[in-house]
């Protein structure tokens, strides 16, 4: 296991960044997700308008991986349609589960590709996917 592939500059930066960490004033949906086993606990808020993510943010606490993953995801989904978000979610989860047939779709994930190494660390997979599963729930309830 190579820590330098895990705690990269970009992941550490995102894990400490407060840029996406706030409450939305006009949230249309909101979902809390947590990993009971490790205490990661995040709440994602979305402002959906006409099937598009106009704004997104999160609050909560957790490990560097869960916090970075959430922050990167929010950067990625802002401005996207819910259809595009669903596709990104599938790509991200497939990357973590090592189920991607070809790597060409990875480019769509932007900085979140930095979490690819998590697929080698079963104990931390939950931390990386928490944000994305929570996002799926948020969109489901908001739709």
């Amino acid at each position, binding site marked *: 296991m190579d820590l330098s592939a895990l*705690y990269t500059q970009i992941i550490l930066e995102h894990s400490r960044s407060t840029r996406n960490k706030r409450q939305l004033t006009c949230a249309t949906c909101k979902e809390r997700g947590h990993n009971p086993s*490790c*205490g990661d606990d995040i709440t994602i808020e979305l402002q959906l308008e006409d099937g598009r993510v106009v704004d997104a943010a999160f609050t909560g606490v*957790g490990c560097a991986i*869960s916090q970075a993953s959430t922050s990167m995801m929010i950067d990625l989904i802002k401005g996207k349609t819910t259809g595009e978000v669903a596709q990104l979610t599938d790509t991200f989860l497939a990357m973590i589960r090592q189920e991607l047939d070809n790597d060409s779709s990875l480019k769509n994930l932007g900085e979140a590709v930095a979490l690819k190494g998590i697929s080698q*660390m079963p*104990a*931390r997979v939950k*931390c990386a996917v928490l944000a994305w599963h929570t996002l799926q729930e948020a969109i489901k309830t908001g739709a």
Partner: protein
Amino acid sequence: MGFSVHEIRQDFPALAQSVHGKPLIYLDNAATTQRPVQVLEAIERYNHFANANPHRGVHYLGTEATRAYEQARERVARFINAGSRKEVIFTRNATEALNLVAFAFGLAQVKAGDEIVLCISEHHSNLVPWQQIARLTGAKLKYLYLDEEFCLTHKEIQAKITDTTKIVAIAQMSNVLGTIYPVREIAGWAHSQGAVVVVDAAQSIPHQVVDVQALDADFLVFSGHKIYGPMGIGVLYGREELLREMPPYQFGGDMIEYVEEESSTFAPLPQKFEAGTPNVEGAVGLAAALDYVESIGLKQIAEHERNLTAYALEELRKLRWVRVHGPLDMAQRGPVISFEIEGCHPHDVATILDTYGVAVRAGHHCAQPLMNYLKIPASSRVSFALYNTKEEVDVFLESILNVRKWLGYGS
């Protein structure tokens, strides 16, 4: 005979391995302990020469299995100074033993308006079953809270345990804080108020002499796997007159006397509480583990672990970015240390330490009410056993400096 940790380590094959290219430093003993060859060989011998259903077979192996199983029961009874072997029930683990007490004793005895008193640091296994009993009976749960030193005061004990208290269920040692609670004092006071005392000895049993009579415990539970024995075997001790009055917990083979089409009568103690084919190899392994611990001596083990704990605590306190959750007074605690590293989430701490070969626990340690009470989402935890060394503590301490570096802090 002197205590030689280096000789002891030879008994534990699991300790000789490397993980991620580093020698394994196993500091997660509060979760489960490794097993000595003496235990592994006892299990193997049983499987080679005596495997059969106890209490049923007329044939040679059946008799051997019965003998092995009942000898293990005697061994446990002696270890905890039970009044008789009938007071020792084998279960799968501490959790099942606590459920047995809650559902066979609690459900029948607790009435609406009664109170069940727990400590806020209880493991979920000694908390969730009582929540269920409270819900089913209309009883009320009350918690003992801790002072700034993470200890229980006499005042708190006497204020919370009153004549409306029916059951007091408390761990002898916290699996998060390391605090050792004054169980004997609690039992004395609880009995004066007419309450029954359930002691969770899952954490204390490998570190100190546990004497059910000296403690005046009505029930006491522990798991084999936390005292160098196998998983899948646990113990419920109960005072004979209480066990005798209790209805069975599970029904089926082995726990009956006569079965007719419409009704049955139940076997006497302890079989009444052991439905179905038991885990004989587990019981045999547990007995071997207790032999092993006694051959080394609990006093010697406790002293060795106390030295490691005092040293680790002292060194951790020198690091201004480390916060310890638990008593600093060695007289109040056992060899479990929970800590937080400023700016570093426990999950990341555990992942990074793992790459240095150091196994620690991170999370809420199955004690979410305690974590809420302390207002922390999670903590990291090291816990020592008889085979840990000062050198291992040093590697752990060096490695936590690296945790800070990996996560982008100067020191």
